[in-house]
């Protein structure tokens, strides 16, 4: 087990290295000049050149890459071209909203989707099943920003239950924090509800045909107990897999949701930075995203051994 974990951790190193080189090269060849954006509409070429020199953007690819990667090794991600703030500061300011959005979204998604999936599997073939599955398909057929506007309009503007936008830090209290997150999280969750409900249903269906479920039923175990104790427990491996992938996907979803609901998260920071070519910030954020992705995948693999003792490494 320990050697497996060690091997897995070591295996992440080439992945992260690849991402480092890939992202840096990608940005290097991407058109767009932060110095020209920074200098503004009135700027002359001489001014842009001066800014470029001042920022060190005129240096060669290897020089910049070595400087950046040695910095990263020391935990120094550099300074934002635009705000001149340390990239680490900018990222730390943004971690909490994105993390909160991820957690609340996944909780909502699981709490809603797993019972729906179980219900659909239990009432397999019924109208209820069909309706649930239809909604599941619709859930990822509508772009998330459309869902967001509609929910914001009804729940926040017309009913006044929730704030329209903005983020209230956890430090300011649990309820304000949760209130500020419910709308964006629910919007984002629609997509995961769709996926997780489908997977849950499919897995439950397969498991319910297994011998031990028939045995349990034959022994007269109550239907609820069959569903939730025997079947769902065995269905948890694929569900956890999807939840894990889902967390990685929330990062992508965050990009849109954070813009729609004005949450000061990492997704918005990334898009802003890409559009204005703030290289140090983009590099750092993508590196962190991929690191998180790798870690989550590791944790998921390890969690299988906890959920299903038959799986060993």
């Amino acid at each position, binding site marked *: 087990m320990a050697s497996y974990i060690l091997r897995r951790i070591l295996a992440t190193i080439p992945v992260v290295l690849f991402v480092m080189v890939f992202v840096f090269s990608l940005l290097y060849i991407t058109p767009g000049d932060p110095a020209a954006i920074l200098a503004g509409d009135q700027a002359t070429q001489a001014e842009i050149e001066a800014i470029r020199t001042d920022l060190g953007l005129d240096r060669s690819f290897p020089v910049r890459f070595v400087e950046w990667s040695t910095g990263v090794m020391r935990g120094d991600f550099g300074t934002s071209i635009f705000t001149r703030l340390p990239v680490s500061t900018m990222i730390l300011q943004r971690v909490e909203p994105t993390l909160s959005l991820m957690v609340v979204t996944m909780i909502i998604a699981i709490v809603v989707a797993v019972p729906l999936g179980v219900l659909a599997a239990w009432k397999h073939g019924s109208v209820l099943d069909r309706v649930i599955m239809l909604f599941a398909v619709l859930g990822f057929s509508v772009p998330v920003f459309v869902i967001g506007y509609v929910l914001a*309009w009804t729940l926040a503007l017309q009913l006044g239950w929730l704030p329209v936008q903005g983020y209230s830090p956890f430090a300011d209290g649990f309820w304000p924090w949760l209130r500020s997150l419910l709308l964006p999280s629910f919007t984002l969750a629609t997509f995961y509800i769709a996926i997780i409900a*489908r997977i849950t249903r499919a897995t439950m269906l397969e498991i319910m045909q297994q011998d031990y479920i028939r045995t349990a039923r034959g022994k007269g175990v109550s239907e609820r107990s069959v569903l939730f104790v025997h079947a769902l427990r065995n269905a948890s491996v694929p569900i956890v897999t999807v939840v894990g992938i889902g967390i990685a996907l929330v990062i992508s979803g965050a990009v849109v949701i954070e813009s729609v609901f004005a949450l000061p998260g990492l997704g918005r920071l990334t898009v802003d930075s890409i559009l204005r070519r703030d290289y140090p910030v983009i590099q750092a954020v993508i590196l962190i*995203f991929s690191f998180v992705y790798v870690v989550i995948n590791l944790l998921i693999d390890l969690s299988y051994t906890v959920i299903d003792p038959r799986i060993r490494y």
Partner: protein
Amino acid sequence: MTDLPRDPEKYAAARPMPAILAAPKNHSRMIRSLRRHPTMWLGGVLLGLVVLLAIFAPVIATTDPAALNPAMRVRPPSAAAFFGTDMLGRDVFSRCIYGARVSLIVGLGVAVLASAIGMVIGLVAGFTRWADGLIMRVMDGMMSIPAILLAIALMTLLRGGSVFNVILAITLAEIPRVARLTRSAVLSVRELAYVEAAVACGTSKFGIIRQHILPNTIAPITVQATYICASAMITEAILSFIGAGLPTSIPSWGNIMAEGRALWQVKPNIVFFPAIFLSLTVLAVNLLGDGLRDAVDPRLAKRM
């Protein structure tokens, strides 16, 4: 949001048994099972309608979808403009009809390209032990970069603009998943007794791929492709939302919605009509994919 979870390999790894892909089937069985899946037919018919819409766009559309008329901006739906007009006075109905072309081309283009390239990479990785580690690390790396961010970066790199660039950007983000799926299919099939027997008999690598591997991997890849197709159309909309999508002179459902989104409180028609088209198409593709999956492999059906 940009892509559906499709990682049967991981799923397979977690199960006590390796993922077993059904042996090739004969055609009469396939047709029989096709008949047993009415939702697939519904999906097929819906998709067929959209394809017809796209093909006959010049006939159906009432005006040039790119014709500007600022004096007629943001008009509500009327007899002259069925779905109203957008901020530049362009006819939303005609844009939606022509948008079918772009959205379908993007969806299908990404599905075909990503499947083909991903399959080749997956086959190479599955068959060449020395390259396997390298290829899969690169794929891991690409997968670990959130797809939407990769696509944004690529769109700016490709200088935005064309349908081809959008397809390329989304495709690149999708390839690793297909490659992984193919590789895992190859690995599981490679160990099967009849394949080992073929190897022992001295059948060439290409022979093995053609006779044993491809028939077994095409099925899951095809199913996978339908999901990629659906998610590519959504991703295209999101790229437009972020400002890294197609220019509005090339109408797609995604950029019609993205451009009209700010006005949705006052002019919901600009957002909702393309949203309906997009949803129905994605729904159709999904239904088709589900049906296909059930048809080609009932076991796969339960797992996806």
